[in-house]
C-alpha cells in the first residue's frame, strides 16, 4: 500500500505539471486531495494494514498530502499570474481614442482676467468698489479736473443721453470721487472695475464698450515711489516674476505727475517681437499721483493727503496674454471663442 501511495504521489505530481488552467487545477485537486480524491480513497483502506505498518503509512500520507498541497498552491499562483498576464495582454485599449466629453461650462475670459486682477490687488489690501455705468458729467469729467471744452475731453468721445448732465462713463476713473466721498476720512485703497463706453468707430482695436479697472490709494504717506513699487509688483504677479517695468511721463487731467507703465514683453522676453512692435515693451496701464483738485473734490485736503491712481484695460491684457487680435470677439460671445479660455 505504501507503494500505491508512492505511485499515486508520483502520478499526481506528473499530472499537476500538465495542468494548464485554474479550472483544470480545481479538477486535479478534487481528484487528488478532495473529499473523494485518490489520497482519501487510499487512506480508507488503512484497515488492511498491520498495526506496525499503520503509523508508518499514516506519517507518510501526511507528508505526501502536505507536499501535494504545497505543489498545488505553487501551481495555482503560477497559473493565476499567467492568466492575469493573458487577460491584461488581451484587453489593451486604444488610449489615443478621445475621452468621453463633459458638458462643462466656463467663465468669460474677461471675468477670468478681472479675477486675476482682483486677487493680486486684494492681497495688497485693495478692495473692490463699483459705481454706475450711467454717470453724471460731474463725476466723469468736471470733478476729475476736466473743465468743459478742455482738450483732454477730446481724448475720450462720450455718449450723451437725453439729460445733458448724464453720460455713459468713459472711464472707471468716474468712480474715484464716489469712493473718496464714501471713505472719507479713512484712507482709501480700492479698485474700481466696470464697463465703460466711448463713441468711437468699432474696429479690431477699439470697441464702443470696454471694461476697465481703476485703482485708487489715498493716505497721508503715499508717494510716486509707492506707485511705482505697487504697480511693478502687480505686473510681476500677473505677467511673471522676471518682468521689468518702465514708467514714462504722460498726461491725465486727474493725475499729476502722470505716468504710463510699460512691461517687458512676456512673449519675447523683451528681445523684440511682432506683438511689442520690436520695442521689447508692452504698454499696460496709465497712472499718476492724484491731482490736488481731485483730492479736494473727494473731500481730502491735498496739503495733508496724497494718493495715486491707475487704470488698465482687461481686454488689452487678455489680448496680449492670448494673442487675440480682434477686440470685438469679447462681446460677440461666440462659444467657439469663449470655450478656449
Amino acid at each position, binding site marked *: 500500500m505504501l507503494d500505491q501511495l508512492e505511485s499515486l504521489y508520483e502520478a499526481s505530481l506528473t499530472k499537476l505539471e500538465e495542468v494548464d488552467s485554474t479550472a483544470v487545477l480545481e479538477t486535479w485537486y478534487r481528484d487528488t486531495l478532495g473529499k473523494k480524491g485518490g489520497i482519501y480513497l487510499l487512506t480508507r483502506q488503512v484497515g488492511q494494514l498491520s498495526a506496525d505498518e499503520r503509523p508508518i503509512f499514516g506519517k507518510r500520507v501526511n507528508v505526501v498530502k502536505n507536499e501535494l498541497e504545497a505543489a498545488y498552491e505553487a501551481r495555482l499562483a503560477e497559473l493565476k499570474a499567467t492568466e492575469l498576464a493573458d487577460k491584461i495582454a488581451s484587453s489593451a485599449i486604444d488610449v489615443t481614442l478621445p475621452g468621453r466629453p463633459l458638458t462643462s461650462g466656463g467663465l*468669460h475670459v*474677461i*471675468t477670468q482676467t478681472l479675477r486675476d486682477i482682483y486677487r493680486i490687488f486684494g492681497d495688497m489690501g485693495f478692495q473692490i468698489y463699483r459705481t454706475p455705468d450711467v454717470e453724471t458729467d460731474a463725476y466723469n469729467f468736471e470733478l476729475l479736473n476736466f473743465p468743459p471744452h478742455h482738450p483732454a475731453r477730446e481724448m475720450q468721445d462720450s*455718449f450723451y443721453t437725453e439729460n445733458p448732465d448724464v453720460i*455713459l462713463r468713459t472711464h472707471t476713473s468716474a468712480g474715484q470721487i464716489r469712493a473718496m466721498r464714501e471713505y472719507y476720512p479713512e*484712507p482709501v485703497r480700492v479698485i474700481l472695475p466696470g464697463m465703460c463706453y466711448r463713441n468711437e468707430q468699432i474696429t479690431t482695436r477699439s470697441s464702443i464698450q470696454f471694461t476697465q479697472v481703476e485703482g485708487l490709494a489715498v493716505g497721508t504717506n503715499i508717494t510716486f515711489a509707492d506707485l511705482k*513699487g505697487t504697480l511693478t509688483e502687480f505686473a510681476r504677479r500677473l505677467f511673471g516674476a522676471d518682468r521689468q517695468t518702465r514708467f*514714462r511721463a504722460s498726461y491725465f487731467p486727474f493725475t499729476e505727475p502722470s505716468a504710463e507703465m510699460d512691461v517687458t514683453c512676456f512673449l519675447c522676453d523683451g528681445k523684440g517681437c511682432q506683438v511689442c512692435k520690436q520695442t521689447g515693451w508692452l504698454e499696460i496701464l496709465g497712472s499718476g499721483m492724484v491731482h490736488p483738485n481731485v483730492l479736494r473734490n473727494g473731500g481730502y485736503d491735498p496739503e495733508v493727503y496724497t494718493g495715486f491712481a491707475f487704470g488698465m484695460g482687461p481686454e488689452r491684457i487678455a489680448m496680449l496674454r492670448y494673442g487675440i487680435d480682434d477686440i470685438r470677439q469679447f*462681446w460677440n460671445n461666440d*462659444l467657439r471663442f469663449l470655450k478656449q479660455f
Partner: protein
Amino acid sequence: MLVPLSWLKDFVTIDKPVEQVDRLLTNAGLEVKTIEKIGIPGAALEWDRELVLLAHLLKVEQHPNADKLVLATVDYGDGRSKTVVTGAPNLFDYVGQGEISGLQIFSPLALEGSVLYDGHKDGRVTAKLKGRELRGIYNDAMLCSEKELGISEEHEGIILIKKDANSPDYQPGTPLQDVLGDAVLEIDIIPNIARCASMVGVAREYAALTNQPMRYPDYSVKMEGGDVNGAAVNGRITLTTENPELNPRFVGYIIEGVQQTASPYWLQYRLRLAGQRPINVVVDISNYVMLEMGQPNHTFDYDFLRRRADQYNPGGPIQINTRLPHDGETLTTLDGTSHKLEPYSILVTDPLGNLSLGGVMGGADSEIKPETQNVFLEAAAWNFINIRRTSTKLGIHTDAAFRFSRGVHPSQALLGANRAANLLNRLAGGTVANGVLDTYPNPPEPITVMLKLDYARRLSGLNLSGAEMAELLGRLEFTTEVQEDHLIVTAPDHRMDIEGPHDLVEEICRMYGYDNIPSTVLSDVLPPQRGNAKLEQEERIKDTLVQAGLQELITFRLTAKAQEAKLLPKNHVAGPDERPYVTLTNPLSAERAEMRHSLLASVVEIAAHNSRYQDRLAMFEVGPIFIADEDEILPIEQTRLSLVMSGQRTVLGWQGGQSGTYDFYDLKGVLAALFNELHLSVSYEPVEHPTYRPGRTARLLLGETQVGVMGELHPLVAEQFDIQMEDDDQPVLAADIDLDALIAHIPSHYPYDPISPYPAVHEDIAVVVDKSVPAKEVEEVIRNSGGYLLKDVELFDLYEGSQLGAGKKSLAYHLTFQAPDKTLTDKVVQKSRQKIVGQLKHRLNAQLRE
C-alpha cells in the same frame, strides 16, 4: 507731429544715436510712435558713405551723339572731378553756359558700385550702379533724383541744391548721409505738452533732458529804415481787438516786394519731412515758422486790403478789427468752403466784412495770389477754447487750429511774426516796412508758484534739496528762488500748463528721470477692509452655474428698443415693460442707441448667433439693466441673471448613446442647484408671460416676492430671434431673475444637519391623483404629514396611462425615514406611512396604487 532730427539739431546739439533720443523723449512724455530713417544706417535704403556724395556742378555740355543726354562735370571733393552722362531735363538750361561753378549748384552723385533705387521702374527696386557706355561715352556715375535715393517718387529731374548765404554750407565730397540723411520722429503731442508742438519745443525738452544749452532761431527783423518804432506802419494800418479775452494779442508786419518763387531746396526738403507740401516761398515760410517755433501765422494780400480801405476810408489807413460774427454771417475759407459762423467764432475783419477765421483758416478773398507782392503778416494769440469749439463745430482741422486749440502763449506771437518777417526778408526778398503793429492790451502776469520742499518730497518720494530741485527746474527755463523750506518758481512764458506745485513736482520727476525714482511698497496705514459682499455673491453664483455646465457671457449693454421688443410675439398688444429707457442722443448706430432694459434679450441674441454653429446651448449672464428714473438724475441699475438652454443635453462622444434634448426640467434642475447652493427656498408657480410658452412658464417666488420667471421661450419669440436649432421643435428654455432681490435674501448663516448614526428605512409609495393636481402639492402633503422622522421625499416615477382611468396620473416616491437617536422599528415607520396615505387621500383624494 513729424520731427526731422536734422531740424532739431539747429537748436540743440544731438550726439546720441536716434534710439537713445527716442528713449529720452518717450520717457519724458513725448512719445515717439515711429522713426523713419532716410539714407542713414537702418533706413530702407542706406546711402554708402564712400560712394554717394555731394557734388558741385562745374559745367554742362550737350552729349555729342544724343539730343536727350548731356554731360555734366562735377567736383566731388579732394580735387576729384567726374563727367557724368545724364538725361535729367533740369540740367538742359545750363548747356552752353560754360563754367558755372559760380552758380553754387550742388547735386547728389552716386559712384560705381553704389546701390540705389532704379528710377525707371515702378515701386522701389534696388539696382547696383555699373559703368557702361552711353551713346559712345563711358559712364560710371550718376546724378540722382529723389526717387533713386528713396526720398520721394519724384523722378522728373535730378536734385539740384543751391548754396547761398541762407543755406547750409555745402561742401563737395561730403557723404550725402550728412546732407540729406535723416531720421524723422513721429511724436504724439498729448494735451499737456502743447508747448512741444514745434521743433523748438521738442529741442527745448531735449536740451533740458541732456542738460545742454538751447540755440534759438534768429528772431531779429531787418527793417526798411531801421525804424522799429513803426511810424511808417501806423499810418497805413490800424489794429483793434474788440474781445481781448478771446484775442489777447495781434501782431502785424507789412512786407513789400516779396518774390513768389519756389523755396530753396533745403526748406522744401524740411517741410516735406515734416509732412507739409511745399507751395511757394511765401506760403512755405508761414508753415515753416509754425513748425519751427510753434506760432501759427497768416499772410494777407496787402493790396487787396488797401483796395477795400479805399472804399471805406479813402486815403486813410486800413482798419483791421477782430470781432465776433453778426447774426447769420458767413465766410468762405481759402479751401473754397462757405461756413455759417457760430456766435463764438472770432473773425479778422475790416469795415467791409470778414477776412479770415481767426486762428483757424484764412478767407478765400484776402489770401495771397500768385501775383501778390505786398503782404500783411499776422501772428496772433487766441483763446484756446474758442478755437477748439470753432474748429470742431465747423470741421476745420488745420495745423494752426491744432496748435491754437491746445494753447499757444501770447508771448510767442511777436517771436513768430519776427521770425516770419526775418525769413520773408532773407528768402523771399521782401522789405519789412518800418515798425511792428502789436495790440496786446493785457499781457498776463508771469506764473509764479510756491513749492514747499516737504510737499515735493512727499509727492515724489525723492529726497532732494531745494538747490537740486532748482537745478532740475532751471533746465526747463524756470527761474527759482531757493528759500529754507520752499522754492519760489516762475514759469518761462511759453508754459501755459503750470497751475500749482504739483505741476512742478512732475517737472522735477521728469528731469530726474522716472526710471531713476525708486520703487517702494506702500507703507501707509491699511484702510479698514470692508470687502464687497454683493460682488462676492455674484461671483459665487457664476461659479455655481459654471459647475452646472453653463457658459458665462458678457454682452453689449447698449441695445435698441426694437431688439428688446422681439421678446414679445408680434401680435402682442402692450408690452409688459413701459418703463422709460436711457436713450443716447449721439449713438454710433441705431442698433446701439438705448441702454438695455432686458438682460434676457441680450442672452437670447447671443444664443441665436451660436445656434448656427452649436447643437448644445447652455449659457448665462450676470449684468445690469438700466431703467430711467423720473425722480433721479441717474437711472436705476438693477443686476439680473438670465439663462438660456437649448439643444442636446450632453455631447455624445464616439461611443454614442442617448442624450435627449433640454426641456423645462433641465433648466429647473440648474436653478434648483443654484438655489440649493445659495440656501434659498424658492417656490415655483404657473404663470402667464408673453415671452414664454403658455402652460410651460413658472414664476419664482421667495416667500411672497416674485424674483423671476422661467420657462420655455414662446415659439414665436424664438422665431423672432432666429434661433436655428437642428430640430424646429426643440424648446428654448429661458429664465430671467432679479439678482439684487435674490442676493438680498441669501442667508449669511445656515444650520448644519447632523448625519444620524442610526440606519435609515426606505419605503416606496405610489399614489394616483387627478392630472390637475400639481406634483408640488402631493409632495407638500407627504412632507407635512410625515413628521420629523421623514427625512427625504424623492419623486422617482410619473405615469399616465389608460389603465389608471381618464384624467389620472400616478406619482411614485422614495421615502426615507430616519431618527437621530435610535434605530427605527417597523411599527413606527408603518404608522408614519399610514398617516401619509391617510392625508393624501383626505386632502387630494389620492388612491394608493398597489
